């Protein structure tokens, strides 16, 4: 739907059309709620099921069966009584649930009785020397090109980092016949030990483990070996990437390549929850800030619910179940169903969700990013990509007494560029914490400075044409 069709008020507005948002929208519409589903992308599915409606069968097959699950979810939403607004960015969310958005190029301000944030995750930005060079990208970016446009590396690729997505992408590329120059695994060996205690519970969700093993073995059989336990990643080149160096077994190694895709896990995309003023807590295991929510997705602000990877990384299947649970809560809060009815309807999803979560502690321990990698980049590393603030400059600000994220931001301008600190907030917090010995909650995150995504003076001006001084 387009901007002209937007109403000024809905009983429920859902932000994000990934698995959590899609399932929430369908469930809420089934109970007769007046639902608007807003999404940044041009087509539904979120990052995980990107391009699911338009992908050719052959390419979908290369991406694996988990990807194809998205098909059902998207068509359920299409068939439900949901107002779906693609290409819609939310730039503001207030405690009173006023939502500032850009639908296409038109700004609008709408309101809702209940809001469900289902904004998903972003890749954990992890700065290393040279990561700003053309030719260095997120692994997720590689996957997006593959999913939506069938675009793959032409002349080989180096994959580096730590996390399930890296392995999955390697496997998908292998099937597509892409030349993988190297798979550099930054997962430290000690993580195997760290994860051991969680293995028994993980076995309850053994299909994840089996998938992982299968990917590994397939890659090995194809002659793609993983270099384990590497460190000191550096991307080098004049105008664009020319080579990648790293240290393995005490030796510096260099690979010539024009493409490096890195991945260090994913973290909740909390920009809107922060803008609304929802309480966030630092999660040591997931190594990220998470909005505080209860079992039903209620945040610290009445009427704002948060669900899916946006509250903590649980994966796509967890997001489906949680999406439905949260929708039930919204339906209940709007007086459409009684508490016991909500609880009854939630029973299956709650159980399935519990089953899905068996794997998480194991994955979190196994892919735990070493503190040094997060909080001690070399002085010449650009940390804030927008304002080009280096780790050295940040440490200098710390050394003269600016010992929290916001003070460092004020002094160095890190986090003041167009990305609104999305790419450096976490890193700056880690660097300050490492340098001062303070805890991450003490160091804090940048305070939210709306708009969450930029809008033009004209778009804002036209939003309130009759307003006077």
């Amino acid at each position, binding site marked *: 739907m387009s901007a002209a069709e937007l109403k000024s008020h809905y009983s429920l507005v859902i932000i994000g059309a990934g698995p959590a948002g899609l399932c929430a929208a369908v469930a809420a519409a089934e109970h007769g709620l007046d639902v608007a589903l807003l999404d940044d992308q041009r087509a539904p599915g979120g990052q995980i099921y990107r391009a699911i409606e338009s992908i050719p069968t052959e390419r979908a097959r290369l991406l694996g069966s988990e990807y194809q699950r998205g098909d059902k979810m998207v068509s359920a939403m299409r068939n439900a009584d949901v107002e779906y607004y693609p290409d819609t*960015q939310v730039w503001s969310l207030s405690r009173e649930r006023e939502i500032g958005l850009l639908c296409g190029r038109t700004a609008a301000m709408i309101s809702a009785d209940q809001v469900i944030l289902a904004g998903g995750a972003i890749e954990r930005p992890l700065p290393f020397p040279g990561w700003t060079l053309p030719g260095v990208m997120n692994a997720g970016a590689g996957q997006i090109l593959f999913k939506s446009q069938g675009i793959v590396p032409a002349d080989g690729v180096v994959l580096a980092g730590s996390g399930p997505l890296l392995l999955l992408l390697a496997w998908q590329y292998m099937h597509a016949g892409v030349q993988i120059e190297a798979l550099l695994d930054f997962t430290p060996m000690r993580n195997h030990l760290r994860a051991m205690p969680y293995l028994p519970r993980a076995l309850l969700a053994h299909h994840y483990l089996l998938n992982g093993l299968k990917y590994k073995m397939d890659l090995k059989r194809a002659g793609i070996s993983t270099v384990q336990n590497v460190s000191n990643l550096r991307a080098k080149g004049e105008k664009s990437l020319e080579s990648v160096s790293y240290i393995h077994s005490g030796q510096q190694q260099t690979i010539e390549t024009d493409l490096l895709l890195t991945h260090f896990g994913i973290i909740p995309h909390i920009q809107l929850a922060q803008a609304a003023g929802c309480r966030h807590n630092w999660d040591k295991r997931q190594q990220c800030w998470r909005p505080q929510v209860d079992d039903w997705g209620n945040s610290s602000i009445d009427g704002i619910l948060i669900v899916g990877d946006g509250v903590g990384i649980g994966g796509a299947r967890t997001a489906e179940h949680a999406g439905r649970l949260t929708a039930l809560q919204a339906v209940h809060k709007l007086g459409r169903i009684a508490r016991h009815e909500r609880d009854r309807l939630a029973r299956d999803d709650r159980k399935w969700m519990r089953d899905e979560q068996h794997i998480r502690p194991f994955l979190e321990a196994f892919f735990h990013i070493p503190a040094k990698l997060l909080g001690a980049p070399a002085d010449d590393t650009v940390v804030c990509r927008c304002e080009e603030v280096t780790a050295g400059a940040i440490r200098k600000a710390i050394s003269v007494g600016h010992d929290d994220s916001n003070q460092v931001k004020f002094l160095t301008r890190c986090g003041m560029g167009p*990305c609104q600190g999305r790419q450096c907030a976490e890193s700056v917090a880690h660097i300050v914490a490492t340098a001062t010995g303070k805890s991450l909650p003490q160091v804090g995150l940048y305070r939210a400075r709306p708009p969450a995504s930029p809008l033009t003076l004209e778009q804002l001006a036209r939003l309130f044409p009759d307003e006077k001084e």
Partner: protein
Amino acid sequence: MFKRLDSHPEKCVTITIDGKPFEAAAGETVAAAVLLSGIGYTRTTPVSDAPRAPFCLMGVCYECLMVIDGQPNRRACQEYVVEGMRIERQHGAGDLSE
């Protein structure tokens, strides 16, 4: 750096990238097209004139800002190609006063 799996897309549109014509697949993002075109960097930064190119492709990092049909600071990963679109590298801060 990148290639299409399917070397003959079903439907093509012609765009220009820094003045040179380029055949893009209908429905693909500007970022995908410029990555395929092999132009290397897509902007230089206003701070140090450093070359940059698309990084996250999901609208988060704002690295892929380009001049599209004369409008600077457009995220190439969020814009879709259309016939005749003019795409240019952005050098430093985008000039909006034209």
